[in-house]
């Protein structure tokens, strides 16, 4: 009897959360737009628009990143975007779960964003951005979710690769593309940073999921072979950092307004290293 009550309660919770536009039950079984289709569209967008190159006047610069803003609430995203306008910040990367997937929330985010002339912002889709068929709206505003951008300084060039793991897997085509990018381009750059929403490691017990272990093996192999310096993740909502070989794996806090420990990540890049700080809000 107690079990039955729990099951009924669980079903009610699921029904309520589903009807309140938090998530869709069908997400446990399928998705609106699969990773291969999203990747094809991202590549089409990249072919049309090219890859960004940002030139900085000094050899030292910063990249700021955030994840899990889950708009609606805009207080913290405003603070983040204010920081993005500092002179030493080359780019601001929004690493997924930016909205709830509802079109209205994507519009709210879009309205908060400054012009690309004042801030070089980049966005990656997270799982929440894909809920309620959110991908077409994300794509309409931000375009590609699989791309790279380059930062050029007077002495060096650095490579930043953004990957779509909103569905918990990179998919065959994106893995092949990522591998080829590293093969063809990595040696031309001083530092290589990978940014993707889904955290790769489980630093703590959590219900948030990770890429499948087979996929993780392949990614770790690529990071080691091609000396990826930093991997920046979100998704877990709680900061964590571990070094593994050449690579520093960083998980960010959630930027979401209701998060008491909200922060964003600031990576300081200079000739000797990439150091990072969590900027608490």
């Amino acid at each position, binding site marked *: 009897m107690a079990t039955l009550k729990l099951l009924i309660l669980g079903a009610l919770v699921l029904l309520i959360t589903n009807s309140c536009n938090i*998530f*869709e039950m069908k*997400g*446990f*079984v*399928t*998705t609106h737009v*699969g*990773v291969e289709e999203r990747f094809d569209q991202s590549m089409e967008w990249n072919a049309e628009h090219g890859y960004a190159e940002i030139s900085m006047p000094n050899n030292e610069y910063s990249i700021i990143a955030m994840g899990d803003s889950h708009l609606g609430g805009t207080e913290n995203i405003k603070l983040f975007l204010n920081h993005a306008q500092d002179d030493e910040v080359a780019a601001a990367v929004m690493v997924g779960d930016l909205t709830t997937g509802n079109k209205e929330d994507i519009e709210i985010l879009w309205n908060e964003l400054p012009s690309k002339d004042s801030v070089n912002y980049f966005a990656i889709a997270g*799982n929440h951005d*894909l*809920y309620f068929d959110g991908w077409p709206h994300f794509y309409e505003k931000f375009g590609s979710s699989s791309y790279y951008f380059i930062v050029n300084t007077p002495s060096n060039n650095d490579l930043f690769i953004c990957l779509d793991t*909103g*569905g*918990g*897997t*990179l*998919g*065959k085509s994106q*893995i*092949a593309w990522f591998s080829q990018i590293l093969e063809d381009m990595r040696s031309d750059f001083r530092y290589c940073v990978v940014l993707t929403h*889904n955290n790769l*490691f*489980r*630093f703590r*017990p*959590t*219900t*948030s*999921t*990770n*890429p*499948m*272990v*087979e*996929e*993780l*093996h*392949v990614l*770790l*192999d690529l990071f*080691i*072979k091609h*000396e990826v310096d930093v991997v920046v993740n979100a998704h877990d909502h709680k900061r964590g950092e*571990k*070094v*593994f*070989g*050449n690579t520093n*794996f960083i998980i960010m806090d959630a930027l979401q307004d209701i998060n008491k420990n909200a922060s964003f990540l600031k990576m300081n890049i200079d000739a000797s290293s990439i150091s990072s700080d969590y900027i608490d809000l």
Partner: protein
Amino acid sequence: MLGVFILHLFLMMTKYFLIVTIIFLSLHVAFGQVRLTSNVDFGENNASDGAYLMSAFGGAYQMDDYLLGGIVQLKMIGKQASLVSVLKFNALKEIELRDIPLSLNAYLMFNRATSSIRETNFGISISNRSRGHFKYVLGSNFRTYAINYSALDKSAADYEQLRIHENFGLIYNISGYIKPLDHKWNIGASITNIDYFLINQATNPLYNAQFLYSLNSKVKLRFESWFKQAGIFNINAHYFGYFFRGGITWQL
């Protein structure tokens, strides 16, 4: 060339099968019950870069309430780093808890993973020994990813960390069968994050369907069909992969 390749595969499979068989036959002659197992897996997933074919040979030795076993998985076709892909040892003790027949299980698994990465996985679990329609396994595992020294471009001492540990992961298996578990034939299905050779994170369950058939009291056949989805607990499920497994178990 194809003929030479097939002959080479056959000889490698035969060599490992003979080694395992000789070890366990010796134990059987000396003491108690021995069980030999052989599997073949064929499948493909987002990370496998094409289809793969794996074979496995193992054995288990049971004496009274204790069982010790080992199994080796070999790469036949695929992008795996080496011929020996996975080596796994397991131990089991039959117990009773408040008159409920249970098994206490432990395993230690070494996965070659890639040329740069290896994984060690240790787990303990408890499972029921019911002959009914359901089988349950629940436990915890400890995973370590490590970098192979051969992949390093500097001395190992120059690196801050060459291992990452994920501790106290949850492992589980819930299986249901249309016939009682000791029936001559059976059809079943499982939700689990445990495979013989790969333990996924708790939030990445795998599904399988099984067909089991006992040829006689000593020889059992099994056919399994596995389906993998990523992102289920992202509430954004995506296809990841599948594989089919055919296997035979021979109790000496």
